[in-house]
């Protein structure tokens, strides 16, 4: 009996540090619930949501050059570092990974999930998608549904927010006015 009791101690030591069952991991990773859109992230940043924790999984140089507001650099080696892992699994926070696009962030999501962390997400499209949707949104076609225009007007507003303009209310409309003024002034001159 005593021998067996000692045996159980060794069994539990053999295992790796905390990780979830592969079967459970497989069940979770075929669900698309981990993906969040760039629009959702933009809304959370604008609303200064304190529960949002953005993790930039690109390397340090890329991070220093550009990152989303408030993002923390979380290069892939961080998964092995206790200091960095402290960012994950804080109750009440939503951790969102992003990379240049979504593959690398998704891979880190899977590894973090394997380690048993919850409330972690992946920003679909990554920074490439961020540039295409928020920083430089494409105008929808006239045939597109109303919701496309609503999204577009939100993105236009978000664009002003993120490109750092101080008079964010209607800078673009003012710029358009300026262009018109020039044209008309020259037209009047010609008439006289």
């Amino acid at each position, binding site marked *: 009996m005593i021998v067996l009791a000692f045996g159980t101690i060794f069994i539990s030591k053999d295992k790796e540090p905390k990780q979830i069952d592969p079967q459970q991991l497989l069940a979770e990773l075929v669900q698309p619930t981990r993906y969040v859109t760039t629009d959702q992230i933009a809304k959370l940043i604008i609303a200064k949501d304190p529960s949002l924790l953005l993790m930039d999984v690109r390397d340090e140089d890329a991070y220093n050059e550009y990152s989303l507001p408030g993002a923390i650099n979380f290069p892939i080696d961080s998964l092995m570092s206790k200091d960095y892992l402290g960012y994950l699994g804080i109750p009440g926070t939503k951790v969102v990974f992003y990379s240049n696009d979504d593959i690398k962030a998704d891979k880190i999501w899977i590894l973090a999930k394997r380690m048993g962390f919850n409330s972690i997400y992946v920003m679909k499209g990554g920074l490439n998608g961020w540039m295409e949707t928020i920083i430089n949104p494409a105008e929808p076609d006239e045939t597109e549904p109303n919701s496309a225009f609503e999204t577009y007007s939100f993105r236009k507003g978000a664009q002003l927010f993120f490109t750092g*303009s101080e008079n964010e209310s209607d800078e673009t409309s003012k710029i358009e*006015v300026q262009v018109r003024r020039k044209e008309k002034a020259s037209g*009047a001159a010609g008439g006289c």
Partner: protein
Amino acid sequence: MHIHELNPWRTLIALSVFVIVIIVGFLTMSKPLLTYHLNMVESIKEVDDTDLYFYPWELESVINKETNSIILFDIRDNFIYGQGHIPGAENMSANELSKEDNIKRLEELKENGFTVVLYGEDELQANGPLMLFRQAGFDNIKILPGGYNYYLEHKTDLKSTENDDSFIKGIPRYDFAEMAAPKDSGTKAVADKKPVQVQRRQKASVAAGGC
């Protein structure tokens, strides 16, 4: 007097039977279908491994049945698979990957030296299953970057994809810092003068009409 004291052997027999039952219990414990074969460090190393890619231009030999060591698995839903898939691909939809039959099938293919290529709608869809199976020891599994969508666009000329990198993920497509740079202060100064300019413009146009 206790019965055990009459025959000391009985105690020993009872004890050894007990131990044997427990050992048999441990040995016959149902083995889980999947176990991790790669630890975290090995799994992290694999993240940047481009050997896991089975490129679209390599598909040609599979479609033309020039090679039979490669099996394509379409992990999209059965219904979508029915609407069109890469010729020769089998369907194993993502939601059914954890079924015993499917895992047995993958094990069989691994033992027989087949390479298994997973593809979904795009690379992202197949990325999760790829990683999981790699970590579970299926080192014969690869992924089709670009997925079905990319294949569909280029299926008439798969050779040409060799010179295309639009399907390769992980590359920054823009100069992020420049694109998202704050508007320079010059624009702002002009913006401040605007209201005055608007008024002037209106007057000018009225005058023009008068002439």
